[in-house]
């Protein structure tokens, strides 16, 4: 389903973020990408979203070369991906409800579907009370939960989660991880980038370890080893 083929990413003038990274992800897989800060986890996710282009190598999504997708067709690719960004990337001028509804609006969901699903997802992530608040009025944890709600509301094929629990307390962390597992069981690929040791060790799922831009380990039931 997803294939990274000899990916190298060099930021000018000469910072190598990824070096010759190759791996494949099959449908319905749950893959964790671990590594220290600056190991290249976020870059890897940005490349899949076509937010950035690799210096070398190719990325395939469902058999399609991501690099060859025309800018006008990129929205179609991105609608199949639900992304939880490290810096949340919530729309500052929209309320929590509107931010989540926006992901449904762009895929052309009806008003009925939006008014049915958004409150439900808000309830799941515990933000019903904050539906009409703007991102600036939310705490770090609440923003993170809003970002998660937005990423999964339109039932994408893949969920990219970059440090989705970084600002959450243990109670919410466990909830979110359970939610991601449940989504994966329903058939969605989940790619989780984190440096939370406990989460990785408790998951017992596939782990790709990055170190200084290189994939040094890829284990089926991996553990957090750095």
């Amino acid at each position: 389903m997803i294939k990274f083929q000899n990916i190298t990413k060099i930021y000018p003038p000469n910072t190598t973020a990824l070096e010759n990274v190759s791996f494949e992800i099959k449908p319905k897989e749950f893959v964790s990408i671990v590594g220290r800060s600056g190991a290249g986890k976020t870059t890897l996710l940005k490349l899949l979203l076509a937010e950035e282009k690799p210096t070398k190598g190719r990325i395939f999504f469902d058999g399609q070369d991501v690099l060859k997708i025309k800018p006008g067709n990129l929205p179609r690719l991105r609608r199949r991906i639900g992304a939880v960004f490290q810096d949340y990337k919530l729309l500052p001028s929209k309320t929590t409800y509107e931010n989540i509804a926006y992901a449904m609006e762009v895929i052309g969901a009806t008003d009925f579907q939006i008014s049915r699903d958004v409150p439900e997802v808000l309830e799941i992530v515990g933000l019903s009370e904050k539906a009409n608040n703007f991102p600036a009025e939310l705490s770090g944890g609440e923003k993170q939960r809003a970002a998660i709600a937005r990423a999964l509301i339109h039932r994408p094929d893949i969920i990219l989660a970059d440090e989705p629990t970084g600002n959450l307390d243990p109670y919410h962390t466990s909830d979110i991880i359970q939610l991601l597992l449940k989504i994966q069981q329903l058939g969605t690929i989940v790619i989780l980038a984190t440096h939370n040791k406990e989460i990785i060790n408790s998951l017992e799922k596939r782990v790709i370890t990055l170190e200084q831009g290189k994939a040094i380990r890829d284990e089926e039931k991996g553990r957090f080893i750095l």
Partner: protein
Amino acid sequence: MLTLLKRIIRSGWLSFRRQGGLSVATIFIMIMVISLVTFLFLFQNITQFLISSLQEKVDISVYFKEEALEEEILKVKEELTQIPEVKEVKYVSQEQALAKFIQRHKESSVLMESLKEVGENPLLASLNISAREASQYARIANFLDDTLSPSLKNLIEKVDYYQRKSVIEKIFSLTAGINRGGILLIIILALVAILVVFNQVRLAIYSQREELTIQRLVGASNWFIRGPFLVQGAISGFLATLFCLLIFTLICWFFSPKLEILFPGLNLFGYFTGNFGIILLIQIFTGVGLGIVSSLIAIRRYLEI
């Protein structure tokens, strides 16, 4: 499609409302620009009025000898009227010339005394000729010199074209200068106006560049991103147009009588109401058009992610 349009309009309206300060600033800039364009339109009318009233004052006079009979003078008038360059020929008899002279100089006791001394009417009958263009006066003067039959030509005492030639040419070069200057001023100010609006819209969009990037990453199509900005631009332009119409109606209504004292015959308010449709179109085109086009150009660079 309809749902998409509805969402775009709603989103544009929400953004317009929520970014109160920025929206007010944009409207304010647009009011200034639309006012400038409307002012230029009215200014063009005022200069045209001044130019034509100045041109109307220009004419040449053909003075006839005392012995010339009225029928003979009218015959010359008829011949002159045949020339295509001649706009109008007015006959002024000796009596009319005297009456005009007295009317004009009745306050001057010296002139009135001198007139009494002379005893009889010293003024000559004349034809006042207006041409359509300044350059045509020379041709009319040539006609009187060369083409007119000798019997009629002998009746002419003098043609004042040659004395007034330099003044006529000066007036016409001045009006042509005003015309050219006006057009140049309009072009320069219109360019400034376009740049000011474009810059304001660009700033407004620049402040939301992060939002544009996020929308792209969430999978919004270019039109779904552009649309609300265009709606916002159109709303600002429309509101600015309404304010401008109100401002100019009041200004024209208030200043029209005062301008009419300064330039008799110039009815600014009448011109404004008479051309209300065109003015409204110019304002809407300037406000809404500029708002939309500026938004389109300014957004383009943020949609490349």
